[in-house]
C-alpha cells in the first residue's frame, strides 16, 4: 500500500490567491487538484487551467457538491463573507478546509508555531477549519513569537506591513478592516497582550516593492541577544516552506523599551510576480498546514 497517496483537494476562488494555489499544487506531487471552483463561466482564472484540472466548476459552491465525495479537503480563497456558507457545506461532508480569507472562523494557524504554542496544535478531527489569518499575520507571527519569548511584561504590539498595490486584489481592498482585525487577533493570541495594532499600506511604487512587515513590541524587559537568536532560528524554519522569507532588520532597541524588527517576503513567482510575497506566504502556509494535517489525520485514523 502506498503511503504517498496524494491529498485530494478542491480550490474555491479563482482570483489571485486561488490561481496561484492551483498552479503550485498542480506541480506538487503531494496533491491532486480535483476541482477548481469559480462563480462565472467566463472567469479568466478558470480558463487558465482548462487542460489541467478535472472539474472546472463555474457556479460556486453548489457546483462543487457532486464532487465532495472525491476530495479530502478544500482551500477557500474567496471572501470572509462567502467562507461562512462554504464551511457549513464542507463541515457537513466531513471535509477539512484551509481558510485563506480573514473570516476568523477557524483555528488560526502559523505552521512554524504549531509545535511551539499549544493553542496552535493540529486538530485530530477530519473536518477541521484552519485559518491562515492574513499575510501580515503569517509574516509577523514568527518574529513576534521570537521576541515575545525573550521578553517579559509585554505592553503593546504593532504590526505594520507594506505591500505592492498590484498584489492587493479586490477582496483585500474591500475587506481591509477584516484584515486589520484578524491580524490583531493573531498578535494578541501570540503575545498574550490586548493592546495590539495593525497598519497596512498599499504601495503603488515602481518597480513594485517586496512585502515588508515590521513588528514593534513595547516591553518591560527583553533579552535582546536571545531575541536575535530566536528570531534567526524561527526565520530559518519558516524558510523551509517560504523560501523568500528573510529578516532585513534584526531585533533591536527602536526606542526606550521598544523592540523592532523587519522581515521581507519575496514571492516564489509561481503565477504572480515575485513582489506578491503577501500572497505567496499565505498560500505556502496553507499548503504546509494541509500536508501536516493530512499526515496527522491519516496516522490517527490508522489507530
Amino acid at each position, binding site marked *: 500500500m502506498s503511503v504517498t497517496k496524494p491529498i485530494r483537494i478542491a480550490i474555491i476562488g479563482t482570483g489571485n490567491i486561488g490561481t496561484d494555489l492551483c498552479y503550485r499544487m498542480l506541480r506538487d506531487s503531494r496533491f491532486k487538484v480535483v476541482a477548481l471552483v469559480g462563480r462565472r463561466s467566463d472567469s479568466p482564472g478558470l480558463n487558465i487551467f482548462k487542460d489541467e484540472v478535472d472539474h472546472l466548476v463555474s457556479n460556486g459552491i453548489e457546483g462543487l457538491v457532486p464532487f465532495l465525495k472525491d476530495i479530502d479537503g478544500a482551500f477557500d480563497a474567496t471572501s470572509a463573507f462567502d467562507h461562512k456558507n462554504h464551511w457549513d457545506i464542507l463541515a457537513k461532508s466531513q471535509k477539512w478546509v484551509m481558510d485563506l480569507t480573514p473570516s476568523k472562523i477557524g483555528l488560526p494557524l502559523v505552521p512554524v508555531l504549531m509545535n511551539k504554542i499549544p493553542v496552535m496544535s493540529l486538530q485530530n478531527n477530519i473536518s477541521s477549519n484552519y485559518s491562515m489569518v492574513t499575510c501580515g499575520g503569517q509574516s509577523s507571527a514568527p518574529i513576534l513569537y521570537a521576541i515575545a519569548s525573550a521578553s517579559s511584561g509585554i505592553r503593546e504590539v504593532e504590526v505594520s506591513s507594506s505591500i505592492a498595490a498590484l498584489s492587493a486584489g479586490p477582496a483585500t481592498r474591500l475587506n*481591509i*478592516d477584516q484584515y486589520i482585525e484578524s491580524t490583531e487577533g493573531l498578535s494578541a493570541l501570540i503575545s498574550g497582550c490586548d493592546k495590539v495594532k495593525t497598519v497596512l*499600506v*498599499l504601495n503603488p511604487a515602481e518597480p513594485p*516593492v517586496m512585502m515588508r512587515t*515590521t513588528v514593534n513590541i513595547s516591553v518591560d524587559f527583553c533579552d535582546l541577544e536571545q531575541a536575535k537568536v530566536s528570531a534567526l532560528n524561527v526565520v530559518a524554519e519558516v524558510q523551509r516552506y517560504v523560501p523568500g522569507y528573510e529578516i532585513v532588520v534584526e531585533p533591536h532597541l527602536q526606542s526606550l523599551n521598544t523592540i523592532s524588527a*523587519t522581515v521581507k517576503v519575496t514571492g516564489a513567482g509561481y503565477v504572480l510576480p515575485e513582489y506578491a510575497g503577501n500572497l505567496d506566504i499565505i498560500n505556502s502556509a496553507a499548503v504546509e498546514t494541509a500536508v501536516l494535517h493530512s499526515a496527522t489525520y491519516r496516522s490517527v485514523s490508522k489507530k
Partner: protein
Amino acid sequence: MTETRLYDVTLRDGNHALRHTLSSKFVRSYCEKADQSGVWAVEVGHGNGLGASSFLVGKSVESDLSLLQAARESLKKTKLAVHSIPGFATIKRDLVPALEFGVDVFRVATHVTEADVSQKHIEYLSNNNVIVHGVLMMSHMIDLKGLVAQAKLMKDYGASAIILMDSAGFFIPREVAERVSAIKNTLEVEVGFHAHNNLGLGVGNAMSAIHEGASLVDGASMGLGAGAGNAQLENIVAASSREFSLKSDVYSFLQMSKLVEESYFDKLPRTTSSSTQSGLAGVFSGYAPQVSAISEELGLDTNTLWKEMANRKLVAGQESMIREIAQDLMNL
C-alpha cells in the same frame, strides 16, 4: 468665493509639524477663536488621521478622543471634522466612536490610485447621516483621466465632495485649475483643494482652485502642516478679500494665526532648499528629516536622492525605503 467654504487643517496637518504633541488645551483655545471666524470646519487629530498614532508614523501624546472632546466642547457654529485613512483606521475601532462623539465631517483618504480601498468606510459613514468627503492624496501622481475615474469611485460610494491633496507641494496654479475643472466638468460632486507650500505656491494654488469654482479650500494658520507647510489660511482670506466680498472677517483669522505663531514659534514650517527639491520632484515632503540625515551620512546629494525617490513613485508612509534607495544610488 461666496460659494467656497474654508476648511481649517491646522489642528490635523499641523500635528505633523508638532510631531503629534498637540494638546487638548491648545485645541480648546484655538477652537474658541475659530468658532468666531466663520471658518466652515476645523479638522482635528493625528497628522495621519484617526487611529494613526503608531510606532510607524509617530505616537500621539494625547488620544484622538481627548483632542476631539476639547474641540467638540469649543465649536458651536463651526463643524468638527476628522481625516481618516483606511489601513490605519477601522470602522469599528475609530469611525464608530468618532460618530458617537458628534464629529460632523469625515474625510476618508487614500493614495490617488487606490480609491477603491475607501468603499466600505465611505458607504458606512454616508449611511450615518454625516458629511463625507473622499480625499485623494498625492493627487499629482495620476493623469487627468485617471483622476476623474478615482474621484468617481469615491463619489459613487457616497462622498459629497472630492478633495484633491497636493501632498508633495508639486502643482503650479494652471495644473490645479485643470484638475479642479476636470472633475467639476465630468462629475456632479463638490471639489476641494488642499495645498502644500514647497514651491511657495500654497496660497496661489488655493486661489486658483477658488477661481475654478472649488467648493472647499484647505488652509492652516501660519501654514502649520507637514514639510514646507500648508497654504496659510489667513492669507487665503486676505487675498480673497481683495477680490470678493467676504462673510469672513480677516481680523479673526489673524487672531488664530497669532495664537499659532506665539505658541509654536520654533515649529513653524518654512520653504527650504530641501523642501523645494522635494516639491519639484513630487515626493511627499514629510520625508525631509530622513532625506537630510541619510544624505549626510552617506555623502549623497539630497537632490539626487529626492529625484530617485520620485522615479520609484514613492508615496507617503514608506520611510523604510529611503535608506535602501540611497544605498542603491551609491552602488551605481
